[in-house]
């Protein structure tokens, strides 16, 4: 009954993530510096995770949901490292470190959880796999929320409040996913629907910020839109 709206929300989320990538790649497009690839790649991975999940709803392939959860967790760890390294001034790019550390953390967590869960599958411990990965994602999102909130407090600019708000909404969405993973009997309750709504609103907030930033010049009478590259 709820599969069709859920599929629509997953597809809409994937589309929104990829639209955001288009905006977030602009700093890299202008600078050609690797350190600006963190945000677009992180949001790109999230878009891929949602796409995999949408495919999993249409074609119930065994393990596709796990691939999506691993990919989503990797994306949040990747984003957290991007924010962590952004506050440390460096002559060289730390992009390679972000990829290596994210892969190690998610890879190790997945491997350990597989080892722990495998012999206990008969007593339903497999759910712990999804729970721990979602907890890891939630920890990373909490770090990003704190980082962006601190930046907002430092800048004293009211416009910078939107991004922490967007990340808080993504964290709420992730928390609802955690509840769903923890309770197998709880499938389509208020928390789940609320979580999906929080994700969509969060993505809309990101989109609003990106749109306002990059199309502001046209409105204030700067350069004609036609002259843009």
């Amino acid at each position: 009954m709820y599969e069709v709206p859920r599929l629509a929300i997953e597809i809409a989320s994937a589309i929104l993530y990829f639209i955001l990538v288009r905006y977030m790649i602009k700093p890299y497009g202008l600078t050609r510096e690797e350190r600006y690839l963190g945000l677009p790649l992180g949001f790109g991975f999230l878009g891929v995770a949602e796409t995999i999940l949408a495919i999993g709803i249409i074609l119930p392939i065994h393990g596709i949901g796990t691939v999506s959860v691993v990919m989503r967790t990797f994306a949040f760890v990747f984003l957290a490292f991007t924010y962590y390294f952004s506050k440390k001034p460096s002559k060289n790019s730390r992009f390679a470190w972000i990829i290596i550390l994210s892969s190690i953390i998610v890879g190790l967590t997945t491997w350990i959880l597989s080892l722990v869960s495998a012999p206990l599958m008969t007593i339903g411990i497999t759910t712990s796999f999804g729970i721990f990965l979602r907890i890891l994602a939630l920890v990373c999102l909490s770090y990003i929320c704190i980082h962006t909130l601190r930046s907002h407090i430092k800048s004293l600019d009211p416009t910078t409040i939107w991004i922490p708000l967007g990340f808080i909404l993504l964290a709420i969405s992730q928390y609802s996913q955690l509840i769903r993973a923890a309770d197998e009997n709880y499938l389509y309750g208020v928390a789940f629907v609320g979580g999906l709504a929080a994700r969509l609103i969060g993505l809309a907030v990101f989109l609003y910020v990106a749109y306002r930033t990059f199309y502001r010049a046209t409105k204030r009478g700067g350069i004609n839109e036609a002259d843009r590259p």
Partner: protein
Amino acid sequence: MKKIARRDKLKIYGDLLTVLCAESKEDKIVLTRVQVQIKVPFDRLKTYIRELDELGLIQDQTSLRLTEKGKQYLVEYENVLDFMKRMGIAYR
């Protein structure tokens, strides 16, 4: 003496174009005044100006007026800075 954070070329070009854009309101752009504002040695400033000219961002090395491409670059640069600030990532 206050230490100036290391800037990459994009930031230097952006800062230089911002100063040149502001200074273009005057009758004549004075190079030493530009140098003081963007805080680079004079010889390096001359190099950057030559590079901006080669990239087509300024009309010529004497008038130092921004071309349409230069103005466009400046808008993009300001948008990128603004976006990174809003995203909570400092531009260094």
